[in-house]
């Protein structure tokens, strides 16, 4: 029998890997991948609990909404990354420091 604890632990592992990627990587695209991993961990939780709601499908419906929102976020973020590359010729968040000085 697959229990809820299994799903929650797997999603905790994925969340922490995503957190590590977001903090440590120096490339904007890799940071974006980390954010996607964190979102996927959250969706896994929604789906795992959604099993206990057969009539209203609460968890699964909001998992679908979360997937759509993630897709929308990624599209805008990639457009921003392309714009930043066009202007600064780099996509490393650490090197874009025009406002700093």
């Amino acid at each position, binding site marked *: *029998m*697959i*229990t*809820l*604890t*299994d*799903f*929650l*632990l*797997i999603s*905790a*592992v*994925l*969340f*922490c*890997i*995503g*957190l*590590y990627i977001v*903090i*440590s990587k120096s490339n904007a*695209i*890799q940071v974006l*991948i*980390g954010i*996607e*991993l964190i979102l*996927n961990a959250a*969706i*896994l939780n929604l*789906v795992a609990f*959604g*099993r*206990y*709601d*057969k*009539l209203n*499908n609460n*968890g*699964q*419906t909001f*998992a*679908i909404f979360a*997937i759509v*929102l*993630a897709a*929308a976020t*990624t*599209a*805008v973020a*990639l*457009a*921003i*990354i*392309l*714009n930043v*590359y066009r202007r600064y*010729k*780099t*996509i490393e968040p650490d090197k874009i420091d025009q406002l700093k000085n």
Partner: protein
Amino acid sequence: MSLTVILFYVMAFITITSALFVAYSGNLVRSIFMFFITLFGLAGLYVFALADFVAITQIVIYVGGILVLILFAFMLSGRETLDRLKQQSAGFIGFNDWPSLLLAVLFFVVLVNVILKATPDALAWTHIAATVGNVISNTDTTTSNIGINLMTRYLLPFEAISILLLMVLVGAAHLARKEGTE
């Protein structure tokens, strides 16, 4: 140990290992393609949570849409990134990565503690759902029910998300357009 449980653990192992490789690899192309495998493994896990429609949505939207977008952005962001990636040595966790690794591990410890203390298998409302018969079983078809619920109970978030998608479409096209030379 039934076959289902073994398959579940195999799927979980594939997902977590490929996610670790995404974090470990210094090569951007490799980490993107390993992320591909992570998403497929997650879709498999959704199937084990008896959410087949969400699993198919995951494959169609994430693998078909988001990953192709990421690959396009990677290829459009130029030669210098590619060249720099070749010099970057894949492998050892550099000195600068230790604080983030420490933070991630500590956060994981906290999360595991919270999950084990909360005892999700003994939650009251899941037991009530089980006794009432409100639990999805292996033989149920959930897709038609999801469709009905989307059009009745969750109509407002559905419409809000459709408007948001329209805004994102316009906004992303506006952001990505070439400016200047009119």
